[in-house]
Protein backbone atom coordinates (compact mmCIF):
# COMPACT_ATOMS: atom_id res chain seq x y z
CA UNK A 1 0.00 0.00 0.00
CA UNK A 2 1.06 3.59 -0.55
CA UNK A 3 2.84 5.45 2.24
CA UNK A 4 1.93 8.95 1.14
CA UNK A 5 -0.56 10.31 -1.38
CA UNK A 6 -0.48 13.76 -2.89
CA UNK A 7 -3.93 15.16 -3.59
CA UNK A 8 -3.82 17.29 -6.73
CA UNK A 9 -7.03 19.13 -5.98
CA UNK A 10 -8.77 21.49 -3.59
CA UNK A 11 -12.13 21.93 -1.87
CA UNK A 12 -14.45 19.19 -0.76
CA UNK A 13 -12.95 16.51 -2.98
CA UNK A 14 -9.49 17.08 -1.50
CA UNK A 15 -11.05 16.53 1.92
CA UNK A 16 -12.86 13.46 0.59
CA UNK A 17 -9.52 11.94 -0.42
CA UNK A 18 -8.00 12.85 2.96
CA UNK A 19 -10.86 10.96 4.67
CA UNK A 20 -10.06 7.86 2.62
CA UNK A 21 -6.31 8.11 3.18
CA UNK A 22 -6.67 8.54 6.93
CA UNK A 23 -8.97 5.53 7.12
CA UNK A 24 -6.33 3.52 5.25
CA UNK A 25 -3.47 4.86 7.39
CA UNK A 26 -1.84 6.70 4.47
CA UNK A 27 -0.15 10.09 4.91
CA UNK A 28 -1.37 12.94 2.73
CA UNK A 29 0.14 15.93 0.96
CA UNK A 30 -2.09 18.88 0.10
CA UNK A 31 -1.18 21.22 -2.72
CA UNK A 32 -2.70 24.66 -2.77
CA UNK A 33 -2.72 27.94 -4.59
CA UNK A 34 -2.05 31.17 -2.76
CA UNK A 35 -5.85 31.70 -2.63
CA UNK A 36 -6.36 28.50 -0.63
CA UNK A 37 -3.72 28.91 2.05
CA UNK A 38 -6.32 28.77 4.84
CA UNK A 39 -8.37 25.93 3.41
CA UNK A 40 -9.37 22.88 5.41
CA UNK A 41 -7.58 20.51 3.01
CA UNK A 42 -4.32 22.31 3.84
CA UNK A 43 -5.09 22.17 7.55
CA UNK A 44 -5.82 18.45 7.62
CA UNK A 45 -3.21 17.08 5.23
CA UNK A 46 -0.04 15.83 6.91
CA UNK A 47 2.06 18.04 4.62
CA UNK A 48 1.26 20.84 2.25
CA UNK A 49 2.94 22.57 -0.64
CA UNK A 50 2.02 25.90 -2.22
CA UNK A 51 2.11 25.27 -5.97
CA UNK A 52 1.30 28.65 -7.44
CA UNK A 53 -0.85 31.75 -7.64
CA UNK A 54 -4.67 31.65 -7.52
CA UNK A 55 -5.25 31.15 -11.26
CA UNK A 56 -5.87 27.41 -11.83
CA UNK A 57 -3.71 27.33 -14.96
CA UNK A 58 -0.73 28.38 -12.84
CA UNK A 59 -1.43 26.15 -9.85
CA UNK A 60 -3.95 23.29 -9.85
CA UNK A 61 -3.50 22.71 -13.59
CA UNK A 62 0.27 23.11 -13.42
CA UNK A 63 1.61 19.59 -14.00
CA UNK A 64 5.31 20.35 -13.29
CA UNK A 65 4.37 22.05 -10.00
CA UNK A 66 2.21 19.08 -8.95
CA UNK A 67 4.88 16.54 -9.87
CA UNK A 68 7.60 18.57 -8.14
CA UNK A 69 5.44 18.79 -5.04
CA UNK A 70 5.10 15.00 -5.07
CA UNK A 71 8.85 14.63 -5.52
CA UNK A 72 9.95 17.00 -2.78
CA UNK A 73 7.52 15.43 -0.30
CA UNK A 74 8.27 11.87 -1.35
CA UNK A 75 4.66 11.03 -2.22
CA UNK A 76 4.34 7.68 -3.94
CA UNK A 77 0.94 8.32 -5.54
CA UNK A 78 -1.23 11.19 -6.77
CA UNK A 79 -5.00 11.33 -6.47
CA UNK A 80 -6.35 13.89 -8.94
CA UNK A 81 -9.90 14.20 -7.55
CA UNK A 82 -12.36 15.40 -10.22
CA UNK A 83 -11.98 18.37 -12.54
CA UNK A 84 -8.55 20.01 -12.89
CA UNK A 85 -6.03 17.32 -13.94
CA UNK A 86 -8.27 14.32 -13.23
CA UNK A 87 -8.62 13.40 -16.91
CA UNK A 88 -5.16 14.52 -17.95
CA UNK A 89 -3.48 11.66 -19.81
CA UNK A 90 -0.39 13.85 -19.73
CA UNK A 91 -0.28 13.92 -15.92
CA UNK A 92 -0.83 10.15 -15.87
CA UNK A 93 2.09 9.73 -18.30
CA UNK A 94 4.42 12.01 -16.38
CA UNK A 95 3.51 10.10 -13.21
CA UNK A 96 4.47 6.85 -14.94
CA UNK A 97 7.79 8.38 -16.05
CA UNK A 98 8.48 9.65 -12.53
CA UNK A 99 7.48 6.37 -10.85
CA UNK A 100 4.60 7.99 -9.04
CA UNK A 101 1.35 6.04 -9.16
CA UNK A 102 -1.51 7.96 -10.79
CA UNK A 103 -4.75 6.96 -9.05
CA UNK A 104 -6.90 6.48 -12.12
CA UNK A 105 -6.94 4.48 -15.35
CA UNK A 106 -3.89 4.07 -17.57
CA UNK A 107 -3.00 7.06 -19.80
CA UNK A 108 -4.01 5.17 -22.99
CA UNK A 109 -7.50 4.61 -21.59
CA UNK A 110 -7.82 8.25 -20.52
CA UNK A 111 -6.72 9.32 -23.98
CA UNK A 112 -9.08 6.91 -25.73
CA UNK A 113 -12.10 8.02 -23.72
CA UNK A 114 -11.12 11.66 -24.12
CA UNK A 115 -11.53 11.32 -27.89
CA UNK A 116 -15.32 11.09 -28.07
CA UNK A 117 -15.47 9.88 -31.69
CA UNK A 118 -12.89 7.14 -31.10
CA UNK A 119 -14.58 6.13 -27.86
CA UNK A 120 -17.87 5.71 -29.78
CA UNK A 121 -16.25 3.36 -32.25
CA UNK A 122 -14.56 1.30 -29.57
CA UNK A 123 -17.72 1.09 -27.49
CA UNK A 124 -19.81 0.02 -30.49
CA UNK A 125 -17.30 -2.73 -31.17
CA UNK A 126 -17.57 -3.83 -27.54
CA UNK A 127 -21.34 -4.24 -27.94
CA UNK A 128 -22.41 -1.03 -26.27
CA UNK A 129 -25.49 0.58 -27.87
CA UNK A 130 -24.56 3.92 -29.37
CA UNK A 131 -26.52 6.58 -31.16
CA UNK A 132 -26.46 6.25 -34.94
CA UNK A 133 -24.03 8.82 -36.30
CA UNK A 134 -20.76 9.45 -38.07
CA UNK A 135 -18.01 7.08 -37.04
CA UNK A 136 -15.45 9.82 -37.02
CA UNK A 137 -15.01 13.54 -37.61
CA UNK A 138 -17.01 15.08 -40.45
CA UNK A 139 -14.81 15.99 -43.37
CA UNK A 140 -17.30 16.51 -46.15
CA UNK A 141 -20.56 18.44 -46.17
CA UNK A 142 -22.37 16.22 -48.69
CA UNK A 143 -21.58 13.10 -46.76
CA UNK A 144 -22.74 14.83 -43.59
CA UNK A 145 -26.06 15.71 -45.23
CA UNK A 146 -26.56 12.16 -46.48
CA UNK A 147 -25.69 10.73 -43.06
CA UNK A 148 -28.09 13.09 -41.29
CA UNK A 149 -30.83 12.07 -43.69
CA UNK A 150 -30.14 8.36 -43.03
CA UNK A 151 -30.15 8.88 -39.24
CA UNK A 152 -33.24 11.08 -39.40
CA UNK A 153 -33.58 14.60 -37.96
CA UNK A 154 -33.07 15.99 -35.35
CA UNK A 155 -29.35 15.31 -35.18
CA UNK A 156 -26.67 16.81 -32.95
CA UNK A 157 -23.25 18.09 -33.98
CA UNK A 158 -20.64 17.56 -31.24
CA UNK A 159 -16.96 18.28 -30.75
CA UNK A 160 -14.87 15.10 -30.58
CA UNK A 161 -12.83 16.68 -27.78
CA UNK A 162 -15.97 18.11 -26.21
CA UNK A 163 -17.51 18.42 -22.83
CA UNK A 164 -19.55 20.85 -20.76
CA UNK A 165 -21.91 21.68 -23.61
CA UNK A 166 -19.38 23.57 -25.70
CA UNK A 167 -19.09 22.75 -29.39
CA UNK A 168 -22.62 21.29 -29.57
CA UNK A 169 -25.46 22.14 -31.95
CA UNK A 170 -28.87 20.55 -32.44
CA UNK A 171 -30.00 20.47 -36.08
CA UNK A 172 -33.67 19.95 -36.93
CA UNK A 173 -33.61 20.38 -40.76
CA UNK A 174 -31.08 19.86 -43.59
CA UNK A 175 -30.88 23.61 -44.27
CA UNK A 176 -29.38 24.24 -40.82
CA UNK A 177 -26.73 21.56 -40.99
CA UNK A 178 -23.91 23.32 -42.76
CA UNK A 179 -24.08 26.39 -40.54
CA UNK A 180 -24.29 24.26 -37.38
CA UNK A 181 -21.23 22.25 -38.33
CA UNK A 182 -19.20 25.39 -38.95
CA UNK A 183 -20.28 27.03 -35.69
CA UNK A 184 -19.58 23.90 -33.70
CA UNK A 185 -16.16 23.57 -35.31
CA UNK A 186 -15.35 27.17 -34.44
CA UNK A 187 -16.45 26.66 -30.83
CA UNK A 188 -14.56 23.40 -30.56
CA UNK A 189 -11.41 24.99 -31.94
CA UNK A 190 -11.71 27.83 -29.44
CA UNK A 191 -12.55 25.67 -26.45
CA UNK A 192 -10.41 22.58 -27.00
CA UNK A 193 -7.90 23.51 -29.70
CA UNK A 194 -9.31 20.78 -31.95
CA UNK A 195 -12.00 21.69 -34.50
CA UNK A 196 -13.19 18.12 -35.19
CA UNK A 197 -16.91 17.51 -34.83
CA UNK A 198 -19.12 14.49 -35.42
CA UNK A 199 -22.84 13.94 -35.96
CA UNK A 200 -25.22 11.71 -34.10
CA UNK A 201 -28.92 11.18 -33.59
CA UNK A 202 -30.45 13.74 -31.24
CA UNK A 203 -32.72 12.29 -28.57
CA UNK A 204 -35.46 14.60 -27.34
CA UNK A 205 -35.79 14.94 -23.56
CA UNK A 206 -33.73 11.89 -22.67
CA UNK A 207 -32.79 10.79 -19.20
CA UNK A 208 -29.12 11.00 -18.25
CA UNK A 209 -28.25 7.61 -16.77
CA UNK A 210 -24.69 6.69 -15.86
CA UNK A 211 -23.14 3.49 -14.54
CA UNK A 212 -20.32 3.42 -12.01
CA UNK A 213 -17.65 0.80 -12.60
CA UNK A 214 -14.57 -0.28 -10.69
CA UNK A 215 -11.85 -2.40 -12.29
CA UNK A 216 -8.70 -3.77 -10.69
CA UNK A 217 -5.37 -4.68 -12.32
CA UNK A 218 -6.23 -8.38 -12.21
CA UNK A 219 -9.01 -8.30 -14.78
CA UNK A 220 -11.91 -7.93 -12.33
CA UNK A 221 -14.58 -5.36 -13.11
CA UNK A 222 -17.77 -4.69 -11.17
CA UNK A 223 -20.52 -2.13 -11.61
CA UNK A 224 -22.15 -0.31 -8.71
CA UNK A 225 -25.45 0.39 -10.42
CA UNK A 226 -26.63 3.57 -12.02
CA UNK A 227 -27.11 7.21 -11.15
CA UNK A 228 -29.74 9.38 -12.72
CA UNK A 229 -28.40 12.89 -13.37
CA UNK A 230 -31.14 14.29 -15.58
CA UNK A 231 -31.53 17.49 -13.58
CA UNK A 232 -29.01 19.64 -15.43
CA UNK A 233 -28.74 23.22 -16.49
CA UNK A 234 -26.39 23.92 -19.39
CA UNK A 235 -24.94 20.42 -18.97
CA UNK A 236 -24.11 21.13 -15.32
CA UNK A 237 -25.67 18.53 -13.04
CA UNK A 238 -27.68 19.98 -10.17
CA UNK A 239 -29.38 16.96 -8.59
CA UNK A 240 -28.33 13.33 -8.86
CA UNK A 241 -29.87 10.18 -7.50
CA UNK A 242 -29.47 6.45 -7.29
CA UNK A 243 -31.21 4.29 -8.26
CA UNK A 244 -33.10 5.74 -11.20
CA UNK A 245 -36.87 5.24 -11.03
CA UNK A 246 -36.73 4.43 -14.75
CA UNK A 247 -34.70 1.23 -14.38
CA UNK A 248 -36.05 -2.16 -13.41
CA UNK A 249 -33.79 -4.62 -11.67
CA UNK A 250 -33.69 -6.57 -14.93
CA UNK A 251 -32.53 -3.57 -16.99
CA UNK A 252 -29.98 -2.67 -14.32
CA UNK A 253 -28.51 -6.14 -14.53
CA UNK A 254 -28.47 -6.09 -18.32
CA UNK A 255 -26.90 -2.64 -18.65
CA UNK A 256 -24.48 -3.42 -15.83
CA UNK A 257 -23.34 -6.47 -17.78
CA UNK A 258 -22.86 -4.37 -20.90
CA UNK A 259 -20.69 -1.76 -19.18
CA UNK A 260 -18.61 -4.46 -17.49
CA UNK A 261 -17.97 -6.03 -20.91
CA UNK A 262 -17.13 -2.61 -22.36
CA UNK A 263 -14.75 -1.81 -19.51
CA UNK A 264 -13.05 -5.15 -19.91
CA UNK A 265 -12.73 -4.60 -23.68
CA UNK A 266 -10.62 -1.48 -23.10
CA UNK A 267 -8.82 -2.97 -20.08
CA UNK A 268 -10.36 -0.30 -17.90
CA UNK A 269 -8.92 -0.01 -14.41
CA UNK A 270 -9.79 2.08 -11.36
CA UNK A 271 -13.09 4.01 -11.10
CA UNK A 272 -15.01 5.17 -14.13
CA UNK A 273 -18.44 6.18 -15.28
CA UNK A 274 -20.25 5.21 -18.46
CA UNK A 275 -22.81 7.84 -19.38
CA UNK A 276 -25.91 7.00 -21.40
CA UNK A 277 -28.92 8.75 -22.78
CA UNK A 278 -32.14 6.84 -22.20
CA UNK A 279 -35.00 7.67 -24.52
CA UNK A 280 -38.73 7.62 -23.76
CA UNK A 281 -38.92 3.99 -24.86
CA UNK A 282 -36.22 2.89 -22.43
CA UNK A 283 -33.50 2.49 -25.07
CA UNK A 284 -29.94 3.31 -23.97
CA UNK A 285 -27.32 5.11 -26.04
CA UNK A 286 -23.71 5.46 -24.93
CA UNK A 287 -22.59 9.10 -24.61
CA UNK A 288 -19.16 9.05 -23.07
CA UNK A 289 -17.04 7.54 -20.33
CA UNK A 290 -15.52 9.64 -17.56
CA UNK A 291 -12.18 8.27 -16.46
CA UNK A 292 -12.25 9.66 -12.94
CA UNK A 293 -14.15 9.99 -9.70
CA UNK A 294 -17.44 11.82 -10.28
CA UNK A 295 -18.78 14.68 -8.19
CA UNK A 296 -21.90 12.59 -7.61
CA UNK A 297 -20.14 9.39 -6.46
CA UNK A 298 -21.63 9.66 -2.93
CA UNK A 299 -25.12 8.62 -4.04
CA UNK A 300 -23.66 5.33 -5.21
CA UNK A 301 -21.73 4.97 -1.95
CA UNK A 302 -24.93 5.56 0.01
CA UNK A 303 -26.91 2.79 -1.71
CA UNK A 304 -24.08 0.26 -1.99
CA UNK A 305 -22.02 0.93 1.15
CA UNK A 306 -18.86 0.85 -1.01
CA UNK A 307 -16.26 3.56 -0.32
CA UNK A 308 -15.33 4.36 -3.91
CA UNK A 309 -12.30 6.51 -3.06
CA UNK A 310 -10.81 3.83 -0.83
CA UNK A 311 -11.40 1.29 -3.60
CA UNK A 312 -9.62 3.62 -6.06
CA UNK A 313 -6.60 3.75 -3.78
CA UNK A 314 -6.56 0.00 -3.15
CA UNK A 315 -6.87 -0.71 -6.87
CA UNK A 316 -4.05 1.71 -7.75
CA UNK A 317 -1.88 -0.01 -5.16
CA UNK A 318 -2.41 -3.25 -7.05
CA UNK A 319 -4.91 -4.88 -4.71
CA UNK A 320 -7.71 -7.06 -5.98
CA UNK A 321 -11.27 -5.80 -5.69
CA UNK A 322 -12.43 -6.83 -2.22
CA UNK A 323 -15.87 -7.94 -3.42
CA UNK A 324 -17.57 -9.64 -6.33
CA UNK A 325 -20.46 -8.37 -8.41
CA UNK A 326 -22.77 -10.80 -6.61
CA UNK A 327 -21.86 -9.15 -3.31
CA UNK A 328 -22.92 -5.69 -4.48
CA UNK A 329 -26.34 -4.89 -3.00
CA UNK A 330 -28.51 -1.82 -3.47
CA UNK A 331 -30.39 -0.53 -0.42
CA UNK A 332 -32.82 2.36 -0.36
CA UNK A 333 -32.57 5.56 -2.34
CA UNK A 334 -30.04 8.37 -2.34
CA UNK A 335 -30.18 11.95 -3.65
CA UNK A 336 -27.45 14.57 -3.91
CA UNK A 337 -27.90 18.33 -4.27
CA UNK A 338 -24.92 20.36 -5.40
CA UNK A 339 -25.04 23.54 -3.35
CA UNK A 340 -23.44 26.34 -5.32
CA UNK A 341 -22.46 29.84 -4.23
CA UNK A 342 -24.75 31.54 -6.67
CA UNK A 343 -27.96 33.51 -6.93
CA UNK A 344 -30.78 30.92 -6.98
CA UNK A 345 -32.73 32.97 -9.55
CA UNK A 346 -30.09 34.36 -11.87
CA UNK A 347 -27.34 31.74 -11.38
CA UNK A 348 -24.81 34.58 -11.00
CA UNK A 349 -21.88 33.39 -8.85
CA UNK A 350 -21.84 34.72 -5.30
CA UNK A 351 -18.33 34.40 -3.86
CA UNK A 352 -17.49 36.04 -0.53
CA UNK A 353 -17.22 35.35 3.17
CA UNK A 354 -19.57 32.83 4.76
CA UNK A 355 -20.29 34.17 8.24
CA UNK A 356 -22.51 31.38 9.42
CA UNK A 357 -22.48 27.83 8.12
CA UNK A 358 -24.46 25.04 9.69
CA UNK A 359 -25.91 21.87 8.20
CA UNK A 360 -28.22 19.64 10.21
CA UNK A 361 -27.49 15.99 10.89
CA UNK A 362 -30.00 13.26 11.57
CA UNK A 363 -30.40 9.87 9.96
CA UNK A 364 -29.37 9.45 6.35
CA UNK A 365 -27.68 12.83 5.91
CA UNK A 366 -24.15 13.21 4.55
CA UNK A 367 -22.42 16.49 3.85
CA UNK A 368 -19.28 16.96 1.78
CA UNK A 369 -17.94 20.47 2.09
CA UNK A 370 -14.88 22.60 2.62
CA UNK A 371 -17.02 25.42 3.99
CA UNK A 372 -17.29 26.44 7.62
CA UNK A 373 -18.29 29.57 9.52
CA UNK A 374 -16.00 32.49 8.65
CA UNK A 375 -14.55 30.93 5.52
CA UNK A 376 -14.04 32.65 2.20
CA UNK A 377 -15.49 31.32 -1.03
CA UNK A 378 -12.93 32.32 -3.58
CA UNK A 379 -13.96 33.72 -6.98
CA UNK A 380 -11.15 31.81 -8.70
CA UNK A 381 -12.70 28.35 -8.69
CA UNK A 382 -16.03 26.73 -9.34
CA UNK A 383 -18.95 27.70 -7.19
CA UNK A 384 -19.62 24.32 -5.53
CA UNK A 385 -19.55 24.91 -1.76
CA UNK A 386 -21.19 21.74 -0.50
CA UNK A 387 -22.75 18.52 -1.60
CA UNK A 388 -25.66 17.45 0.53
CA UNK A 389 -26.49 13.80 0.14
CA UNK A 390 -29.36 11.95 1.78
CA UNK A 391 -30.35 8.33 1.96
CA UNK A 392 -33.81 7.01 2.70
CA UNK A 393 -35.60 3.70 2.66
CA UNK A 394 -37.28 4.76 -0.57
CA UNK A 395 -37.41 7.79 -2.89
CA UNK A 396 -40.23 9.62 -1.03
CA UNK A 397 -38.31 9.32 2.25
CA UNK A 398 -35.13 10.55 0.55
CA UNK A 399 -36.97 13.54 -0.91
CA UNK A 400 -38.56 14.43 2.45
CA UNK A 401 -35.18 14.08 4.12
CA UNK A 402 -33.46 16.30 1.57
CA UNK A 403 -36.16 18.92 1.96
CA UNK A 404 -35.88 19.14 5.72
CA UNK A 405 -32.09 19.13 5.48
CA UNK A 406 -32.02 22.03 3.01
CA UNK A 407 -34.68 23.91 5.00
CA UNK A 408 -32.52 23.64 8.10
CA UNK A 409 -29.21 24.48 6.43
CA UNK A 410 -27.89 27.91 7.37
CA UNK A 411 -25.48 29.71 5.04
CA UNK A 412 -25.17 33.42 5.75
CA UNK A 413 -22.99 35.92 3.91
CA UNK A 414 -23.35 34.61 0.36
CA UNK A 415 -26.23 33.47 -1.83
CA UNK A 416 -26.66 29.77 -2.50
CA UNK A 417 -28.68 27.57 -4.79
CA UNK A 418 -30.59 26.07 -1.83
CA UNK A 419 -33.85 27.91 -2.59
CA UNK A 420 -33.72 26.64 -6.18
CA UNK A 421 -33.03 23.10 -4.98
CA UNK A 422 -36.02 23.29 -2.64
CA UNK A 423 -38.22 24.36 -5.53
CA UNK A 424 -36.98 21.44 -7.61
CA UNK A 425 -37.70 19.05 -4.72
CA UNK A 426 -41.24 20.39 -4.51
CA UNK A 427 -41.86 20.20 -8.26
CA UNK A 428 -44.63 17.68 -9.05
CA UNK A 429 -42.69 16.22 -12.00
CA UNK A 430 -39.61 15.75 -9.85
CA UNK A 431 -41.65 14.13 -7.08
CA UNK A 432 -43.28 11.85 -9.64
CA UNK A 433 -39.88 10.90 -11.05
CA UNK A 434 -40.72 12.37 -14.46
CA UNK A 435 -37.17 13.45 -15.19
CA UNK A 436 -35.31 14.35 -18.35
CA UNK A 437 -32.43 16.57 -19.32
CA UNK A 438 -34.97 19.17 -20.44
CA UNK A 439 -36.52 19.28 -16.94
CA UNK A 440 -34.64 22.41 -15.91
CA UNK A 441 -35.51 24.28 -19.09
CA UNK A 442 -39.23 23.67 -18.53
CA UNK A 443 -38.85 24.29 -14.80
CA UNK A 444 -37.17 27.67 -15.31
CA UNK A 445 -39.67 28.70 -17.97
CA UNK A 446 -42.61 27.86 -15.72
CA UNK A 447 -40.98 29.82 -12.98
CA UNK A 448 -40.41 32.80 -15.23
CA UNK A 449 -44.03 32.59 -16.36
CA UNK A 450 -45.28 32.62 -12.80
CA UNK A 451 -43.44 35.89 -12.28
CA UNK A 452 -41.17 34.50 -9.62
CA UNK A 453 -44.09 34.09 -7.28
CA UNK A 454 -44.42 31.40 -4.68
CA UNK A 455 -40.89 31.14 -3.41
CA UNK A 456 -40.36 27.70 -1.97
CA UNK A 457 -38.30 29.25 0.81
Amino acid at each position, binding site marked *: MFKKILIANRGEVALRVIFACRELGIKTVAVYSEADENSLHVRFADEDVCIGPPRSADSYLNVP*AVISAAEITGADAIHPGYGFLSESAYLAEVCEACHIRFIGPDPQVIRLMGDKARARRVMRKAGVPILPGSDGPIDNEDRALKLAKDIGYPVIVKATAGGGGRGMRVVRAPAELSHAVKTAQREAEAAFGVADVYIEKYVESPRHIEFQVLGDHHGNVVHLGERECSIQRRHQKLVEESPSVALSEKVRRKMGGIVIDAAKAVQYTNAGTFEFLMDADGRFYFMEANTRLQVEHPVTEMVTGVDIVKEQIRIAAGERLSFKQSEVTFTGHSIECRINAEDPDTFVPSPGVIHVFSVPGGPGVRVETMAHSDCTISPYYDSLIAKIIVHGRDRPEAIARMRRTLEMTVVEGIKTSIPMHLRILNDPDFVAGKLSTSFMERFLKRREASGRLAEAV
Partner: protein
Amino acid sequence: MDLDQIKQILDLVREHELSEFEIEHEGLRLKVRKDANGAHVATLPAPVSAVIIPPVAAAAVPAATPVAAPGSAAEAQEAAVADMELAVVKSPIVGTFYRSPEPGAASFVEVGSTVKKGQVLCIIEAMKLMNEIDSEHDGEIVNIYVENGQPVQYGERLFAIRTR
Protein backbone atom coordinates in the same frame (compact mmCIF):
# COMPACT_ATOMS: atom_id res chain seq x y z
CA MET B 1 -32.32 39.60 17.74
CA ASP B 2 -29.15 37.68 18.33
CA LEU B 3 -25.52 38.66 18.48
CA ASP B 4 -25.00 37.85 14.84
CA GLN B 5 -27.59 40.36 13.81
CA ILE B 6 -26.03 42.94 16.08
CA LYS B 7 -22.67 42.26 14.49
CA GLN B 8 -24.15 42.70 11.07
CA ILE B 9 -25.71 46.00 12.06
CA LEU B 10 -22.39 47.20 13.46
CA ASP B 11 -20.68 46.19 10.25
CA LEU B 12 -23.21 48.26 8.37
CA VAL B 13 -22.59 51.18 10.70
CA ARG B 14 -18.91 50.95 9.95
CA GLU B 15 -19.38 50.41 6.24
CA HIS B 16 -21.61 53.47 5.95
CA GLU B 17 -19.46 55.50 8.35
CA LEU B 18 -22.44 56.39 10.52
CA SER B 19 -22.04 58.36 13.72
CA GLU B 20 -25.41 57.36 15.11
CA PHE B 21 -27.84 54.52 14.44
CA GLU B 22 -31.11 53.83 16.18
CA ILE B 23 -33.75 51.22 15.49
CA GLU B 24 -36.93 50.21 17.23
CA HIS B 25 -38.80 47.19 15.98
CA GLU B 26 -41.10 44.62 17.54
CA GLY B 27 -40.09 45.13 21.11
CA LEU B 28 -36.46 45.64 20.25
CA ARG B 29 -34.70 48.92 20.59
CA LEU B 30 -31.09 49.33 19.54
CA LYS B 31 -29.05 52.50 19.57
CA VAL B 32 -25.44 52.96 18.56
CA ARG B 33 -23.28 56.08 18.62
CA LYS B 34 -19.78 56.43 17.31
CA ASP B 35 -17.42 59.26 18.09
CA ALA B 36 -15.66 59.52 14.76
CA ASN B 37 -14.32 63.00 15.40
CA GLY B 38 -11.58 63.52 12.86
CA ALA B 39 -10.15 66.61 14.63
CA HIS B 40 -9.16 64.60 17.67
CA VAL B 41 -7.43 62.01 15.62
CA ALA B 42 -5.55 64.67 13.75
CA THR B 43 -4.41 66.88 16.60
CA LEU B 44 -3.74 64.38 19.31
CA PRO B 45 -1.42 61.39 19.20
CA ALA B 46 -4.45 59.12 19.40
CA PRO B 47 -3.74 55.50 20.22
CA VAL B 48 -4.06 54.47 16.59
CA SER B 49 -2.95 50.98 15.73
CA ALA B 50 -0.34 51.37 13.06
CA VAL B 51 -0.61 48.63 10.49
CA ILE B 52 2.21 48.58 8.05
CA ILE B 53 1.63 46.24 5.18
CA PRO B 54 4.56 45.82 2.83
CA PRO B 55 3.68 45.99 -0.87
CA VAL B 56 2.27 42.57 -1.63
CA ALA B 57 4.48 40.50 -3.85
CA ALA B 58 3.06 39.85 -7.26
CA ALA B 59 3.76 36.24 -8.13
CA ALA B 60 7.47 35.59 -7.97
CA VAL B 61 8.63 39.19 -8.11
CA PRO B 62 10.89 40.49 -5.36
CA ALA B 63 9.05 42.09 -2.48
CA ALA B 64 10.02 44.30 0.38
CA THR B 65 10.32 42.62 3.73
CA PRO B 66 10.45 44.43 7.05
CA VAL B 67 13.75 44.26 8.89
CA ALA B 68 12.62 45.57 12.23
CA ALA B 69 9.45 45.63 14.24
CA PRO B 70 8.56 49.31 14.29
CA GLY B 71 8.11 50.67 17.76
CA SER B 72 6.87 54.13 16.84
CA ALA B 73 5.68 56.00 13.80
CA ALA B 74 9.11 57.55 13.30
CA GLU B 75 10.83 54.21 13.54
CA ALA B 76 8.25 52.73 11.26
CA GLN B 77 9.02 55.30 8.66
CA GLU B 78 12.70 54.61 8.92
CA ALA B 79 12.02 50.94 8.66
CA ALA B 80 9.87 51.49 5.61
CA VAL B 81 12.74 53.34 3.96
CA ALA B 82 15.08 50.52 4.87
CA ASP B 83 12.59 48.04 3.47
CA MET B 84 12.54 49.65 0.10
CA GLU B 85 16.21 48.89 -0.34
CA LEU B 86 15.67 45.17 0.23
CA ALA B 87 14.40 42.83 -2.46
CA VAL B 88 13.32 39.32 -1.58
CA VAL B 89 13.73 36.71 -4.26
CA LYS B 90 10.97 34.14 -4.01
CA SER B 91 10.79 30.76 -5.68
CA PRO B 92 8.75 30.96 -8.90
CA ILE B 93 8.30 27.16 -8.91
CA VAL B 94 8.08 24.14 -6.64
CA GLY B 95 11.21 22.05 -6.51
CA THR B 96 14.53 21.38 -4.85
CA PHE B 97 16.89 24.27 -4.13
CA TYR B 98 20.56 23.97 -5.10
CA ARG B 99 23.15 26.63 -4.40
CA SER B 100 25.75 25.28 -6.83
CA PRO B 101 25.64 24.04 -10.44
CA GLU B 102 26.65 20.50 -9.41
CA PRO B 103 27.53 18.60 -6.25
CA GLY B 104 30.90 19.69 -4.90
CA ALA B 105 31.08 22.83 -7.03
CA ALA B 106 31.24 26.30 -5.54
CA SER B 107 28.02 28.10 -4.68
CA PHE B 108 26.67 30.61 -7.16
CA VAL B 109 26.49 33.26 -4.42
CA GLU B 110 27.22 33.67 -0.72
CA VAL B 111 25.96 36.16 1.83
CA GLY B 112 27.98 39.29 1.04
CA SER B 113 28.31 38.50 -2.67
CA THR B 114 27.71 41.34 -5.05
CA VAL B 115 25.24 40.35 -7.75
CA LYS B 116 24.17 41.88 -11.02
CA LYS B 117 20.81 41.73 -12.74
CA GLY B 118 20.62 38.50 -14.76
CA GLN B 119 23.25 36.70 -12.69
CA VAL B 120 22.35 33.11 -11.67
CA LEU B 121 21.58 32.89 -7.95
CA CYS B 122 20.64 29.23 -7.63
CA ILE B 123 19.07 26.25 -9.35
CA ILE B 124 15.67 24.78 -8.59
CA GLU B 125 15.17 21.25 -9.79
CA ALA B 126 11.66 20.41 -10.86
CA MET B 127 10.68 17.28 -12.79
CA LYS B 128 14.37 16.45 -13.36
CA LEU B 129 14.89 19.86 -14.99
CA MET B 130 17.45 22.26 -13.57
CA ASN B 131 15.90 25.74 -13.56
CA GLU B 132 18.34 28.59 -13.10
CA ILE B 133 16.99 31.46 -11.04
CA ASP B 134 18.43 34.82 -12.04
CA SER B 135 18.69 38.01 -10.05
CA GLU B 136 16.39 40.79 -11.14
CA HIS B 137 18.46 43.38 -9.26
CA ASP B 138 21.93 44.73 -8.86
CA GLY B 139 22.96 44.56 -5.22
CA GLU B 140 24.39 42.58 -2.35
CA ILE B 141 23.13 39.25 -1.00
CA VAL B 142 22.26 39.89 2.65
CA ASN B 143 20.40 36.69 3.46
CA ILE B 144 19.91 33.17 2.11
CA TYR B 145 16.77 31.64 3.57
CA VAL B 146 17.02 28.04 2.32
CA GLU B 147 19.60 25.32 2.87
CA ASN B 148 21.20 23.58 -0.08
CA GLY B 149 19.20 20.55 -1.23
CA GLN B 150 16.09 21.63 0.61
CA PRO B 151 12.63 21.49 -1.05
CA VAL B 152 10.97 24.84 -1.73
CA GLN B 153 7.34 25.74 -2.33
CA TYR B 154 5.95 28.25 -4.77
CA GLY B 155 6.48 31.74 -3.37
CA GLU B 156 8.97 30.63 -0.71
CA ARG B 157 11.71 33.18 0.12
CA LEU B 158 15.14 32.30 -1.26
CA PHE B 159 17.38 35.37 -1.02
CA ALA B 160 17.34 38.93 0.28
CA ILE B 161 19.23 41.43 -1.84
CA ARG B 162 20.15 44.94 -0.70
CA THR B 163 19.53 46.79 -3.93
CA ARG B 164 21.39 49.83 -5.18
